[in-house]
């Protein structure tokens, strides 16, 4: 049995998103929308395009209508750290102490957690774990209770306002069942998004991190690949070039249901307290 509860008949499938080669083209966002028929998104919720003024990011975050989201971060770094592309320039040559801009771009997606809070708290069983160890919503079961929305430690799943039900990335359940790769990975021109067996991806990611470290990119780090983290490792994990929160990711996410046994004990004790207080109130009143 795997950690997520499935018998090992089919290897666990997932994404490795190597943000060091992301060029911010958003082909993943477009391919996802087209294949999955995801409605237009705008943070105003009316389907109109929004200009957010956050670098080239006009998607903002993951949500019911954005299953891939490319983050754009512009950082001031010493000019010496910026690759010289040999572009023609005007004026005097750069001074040594001048600063340049480093771009971080990252395509975020549902993490398909080993211990998925959305799945745990779903009261109807609409959210389920597939044979690929991914986490998928069944739209014909979801009654739009919305509990999964605040349960997700990454803020991925969301209720679609005009529909009432919750939606998120399915890791293209309909494609991978036919041996195809998910639409976003298929469309990615730089192989920043890699789809495959999770074990293979983890090995590849470790190699890539070492390679970057050897090249002097010591800030390269993996996010979500550790099976001992608060969600038991994620099915979609990342190579990042800065701290997770810079990309809008929680630095140490924990599946909320890890603390649930303790919460039920506290609530049980509090309920017994109410019962005792009610009985005592009547006994006290009789005297």
């Amino acid at each position, binding site marked *: 049995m795997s950690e997520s509860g499935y018998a090992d008949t089919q290897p666990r499938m997932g994404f490795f998103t190597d943000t060091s080669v992301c060029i911010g083209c958003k082909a993943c966002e477009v391919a996802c929308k087209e294949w999955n028929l995801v409605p237009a998104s705008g943070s105003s919720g009316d389907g109109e395009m929004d200009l957010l003024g956050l670098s080239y990011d006009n998607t903002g975050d993951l949500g019911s209508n954005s299953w891939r989201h490319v983050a754009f971060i512009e950082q001031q770094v010493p000019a010496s750290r910026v690759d010289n592309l040999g572009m023609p320039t005007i004026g005097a040559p750069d001074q040594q102490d001048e600063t340049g801009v480093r771009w971080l771009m990252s395509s975020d997606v549902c993490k398909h957690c080993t211990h998925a809070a959305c799945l745990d708290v779903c009261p109807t069983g609409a959210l389920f774990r597939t044979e690929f160890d991914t986490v998928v919503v069944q739209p014909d079961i979801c009654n739009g209770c919305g509990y999964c929305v605040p349960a997700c430690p990454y803020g991925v799943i969301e209720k679609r306002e005009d529909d009432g039900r919750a939606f998120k990335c399915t890791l293209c359940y309909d494609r991978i069942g036919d041996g195809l790769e998910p639409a976003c990975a298929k469309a990615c021109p730089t192989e920043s998004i890699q789809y495959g067996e999770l074990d293979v991806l983890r090995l590849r990611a470790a190699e890539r991190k070492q390679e970057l470290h050897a090249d002097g990119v010591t800030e390269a780090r993996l996010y979500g690949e550790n099976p001992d983290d608060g969600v038991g490792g994620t099915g979609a994990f990342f190579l990042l070039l800065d701290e997770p929160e810079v990309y809008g990711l929680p630095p140490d996410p924990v599946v909320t249901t890890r603390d*649930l046994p303790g*919460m039920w004990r506290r*609530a049980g004790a*509090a309920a017994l307290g109410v019962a005792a*207080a009610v009985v005592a109130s*009547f006994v006290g009143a009789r005297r």
Partner: protein
Amino acid sequence: MSRARGPDRDQQRSAQGTGRAQPSRRERAMVEPAEFRSYYGRPIVKEPAWEQPDVPLYLFLGGAAGASASMAAMARVSDLPRLARAGTLVAAGGSLASVAALIHDLGRPERFLYMLRVFKPTSPLSVGSWILAPFSGLATVSTVSLLTGKLRPIGTLAGNAAGLLGPAMCTYTAVLLADTATPAWHEGRRELPVLFAGSAATSGAGAALLLVPTREVAPARNLGLAGAAAEVVAEHRLEHNLGVVSETYRHGRAGTLLKAGKALTAVGAGLSLLSTRSRVASVAAGAAYLAAGVCTRFGVYTAGVASSRDPKYTVVPQRERMAQHGSAVQ
């Protein structure tokens, strides 16, 4: 971060989004203000998807109904017919209204029965549905029997069964909120069950103080005082023991609502001491307790929403945890 400027503008300066977290007064002497980074100051977790006033009212009504059902059951065996009658009516009315609020909040209300499709102990909403559905059914049977005078033994049996489920009605909603990634609720998971138990007790007692004549009101007065004490202790802990997240219980609209709730609870408790002598005092105490319950539930809900809107409350506690236990990111 200066409070006057507001967190959003301050953090949206740059993608580096370095902000400063205000430490609670208790920690101020020892700990430097926590620095944190974010993606343009945008939230990490999603805001609770539930509607206001549906869900805060659902919390309030369910709690009041639970405490009232238990009181009604005890009143029946203690031969206090007016208190038993009031408790029975409030249990049925409150729980049916609570069910209505919950169904109204669903994105697909016609699928409300899907809540009973499975029983999942990992989902407090599933467990809660399995408490709320039988409770409201039993309380309704008991009320119908009481109002029509028919099938009295069955009505009594149903009322007593509802009374047994009552305490669970009072506290399961605390787990419902705490079992999320919403920082104010999850970090408050130890305190919320006590707060909700206390708030349910004062609300149930408040309804009885409002409806029951002075000679039968003493048990409600006692229950209200016990509930008020539990509420004060739990609320103080929420406001001071959760590190940076406690801010969300002290400041803004949540802070105002919770302060109002505390003041109304104190007024209710004080007036209730006169409830066995003065019907006017009893009614005023009951009204104050009920208003306090509404303020407290809306306050807790609002604190949760506020904590999900600012990435500080997600990042800073996680960074503190990592500093204690070593990094999860390699």
